[in-house]
């Protein structure tokens, strides 16, 4: 069963004054971020979106999350069109966006508070999640007293606290160093494999995509649409060792094969559009 269905989703942005881009040789002050995005996501699957910079992956995530409306087309969540953030959705941002005035524990409670969960229950849920991420000793710490990896663990715990059916993750590990990143990938996959949450995960890293995903959706250069969907045929449960297997390399090769042309295309376009800055 498909929990998310995206039908011909398009999104245009007006550029700031003085900025312009070239679309097929025509200079315009509008930018097509998404150009007819069709995607069906199965309940409980881990879907990773990869694509060149500016291909609208994060824009798509915002639309699924109800934070941004499509210019045309529609996204269905459980057969209902998304027009506002849903209680079924959780969101993890690249910049952890923890509140500096709240402790780790209290940050995790944030999503539960607006849903009317009582204090004792909130603390119980938050403590369970902290222990799942090995952060039990840090519940009273403020974000500035935690490392980047710990902060992102807390942010993921906050998103998991409301038991979302769909978890949206926008390059959550992009700001972390390589080792921490691998450790967090391992933790995420271990925790996710014990749930039935559907995850849509955006990344630039092919390794990350292959390690985490059931399916990798390769997005084209701007305007973004799905170019190809690659089934990752690696067994679960997965652990870090799988990264050095030949199956892993084969999957990696498949994804890169689909992505390479798009990355080149995107880079060409950026060279041709000097007025546009990201």
């Amino acid at each position, binding site marked *: 069963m498909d929990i998310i269905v995206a039908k011909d989703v398009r999104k245009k942005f007006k550029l700031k004054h003085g900025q312009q881009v070239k679309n097929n040789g025509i200079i315009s002050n509008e930018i097509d971020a998404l150009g007819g995005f069709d995607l069906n996501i199965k309940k409980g699957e881990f879907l990773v979106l990869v694509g060149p910079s500016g291909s609208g992956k994060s824009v798509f995530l915002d639309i699924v999350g109800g*934070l941004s409306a499509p210019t045309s087309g529609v996204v269905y969540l459980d057969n209902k069109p998304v027009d506002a953030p849903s209680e079924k959705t*959780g969101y993890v*941002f690249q910049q952890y966006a923890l*509140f500096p*005035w*709240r402790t780790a524990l209290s940050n995790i409670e944030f*999503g539960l*508070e*607006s849903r009317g969960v009582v204090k004792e229950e909130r603390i119980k849920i938050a403590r369970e999640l902290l222990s799942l991420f090995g952060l039990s000793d840090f519940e009273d710490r403020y974000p*500035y007293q935690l490392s980047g990896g710990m902060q992102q663990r807390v942010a993921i715990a906050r998103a998991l606290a409301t038991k979302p059916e769909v978890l949206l993750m926008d390059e959550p590990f992009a700001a972390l160093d390589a080792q921490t990143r691998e450790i967090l990938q391992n933790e995420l996959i271990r925790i996710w494999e014990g749930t039935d949450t559907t995850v849509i995960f955006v990344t630039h890293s092919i390794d990350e995509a292959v390690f985490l995903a059931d399916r990798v959706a390769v997005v084209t250069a701007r305007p973004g649409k799905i170019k190809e969907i690659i089934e990752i045929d690696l067994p679960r449960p997965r652990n870090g060792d799988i990264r050095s297997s030949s199956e892993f390399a084969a999957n990696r090769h498949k994804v890169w094969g689909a992505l390479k042309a798009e990355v080149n295309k995107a880079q060409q376009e950026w060279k041709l559009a000097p007025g546009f800055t990201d």
Partner: protein
Amino acid sequence: MIKKIFKRLGLKDKLLGLIVPFLLLIIWQGAVTKHLFSELLVVPPLTLLNTLIELAKSGDLSSNILASLNRVLIGFLIGASGGFILGIAMGLSPIINRTLSPLVKALQQVPEFAWMPVIILLFGIDEFAKNIFIAIGAFYPMLFNTYLGVSGVPDKYHELAQVYQYKSHRYLAKVILPSALPSIITGIRLSLGLSWVFVVGAEFFGTEAGVGFMMISGRQLFQIDVVMAGLVVIGTIGFLLNYVLQLLEKKLSGGRVAFDGGIA
């Protein structure tokens, strides 16, 4: 051992700040003792200390300080709450901001003391007029700092509030205000500081109590020592107000950095 205690309290840095005032006091005392200035016009520090002690003993000092603080408090509460509410409105709504900010910026250019004749015409010279005079001074720093704090709430916090369906008063109480808190406290500190500066000015006109009144009557009776005692009291209380609020600012900002006006 003593070194350790000094380090604990951060006294070493603070003592540095005392060296220059202390030297000035010595030079000042020396200059008067050596008759470089008339003792009638420049009161030496030791005499000043004596005057302060006498003023304190007679109860004049505390009653005047209390009268001034009372005025400051009322004026500050009126002005700062106005600035706070308007700052939130302008910070949250770009339309309100664009509508009001030219007017606010123009009015802010009016020097505080230029309001005096207007206030006297409208409200006379009684207590309420003084409160309004102080309130005008207290209004702007509170408005600007609240506005900065509220309009500076990071986009991601807004998105997070949306994701978890935080709306209206809950949104304000759980996301906007805590995020803007360091800035708001800076606003309170600067606003209260200015209130204290302006109370003395307000008391130069038609009062019977207050530190400003004490100085004016001292001048009229040619008690230069009382005038200078007033200066010392104003400086000391202003310093203490600022110091206490700065401590509060540090405590409440929880590792976040707040604007300190360039002078720590």
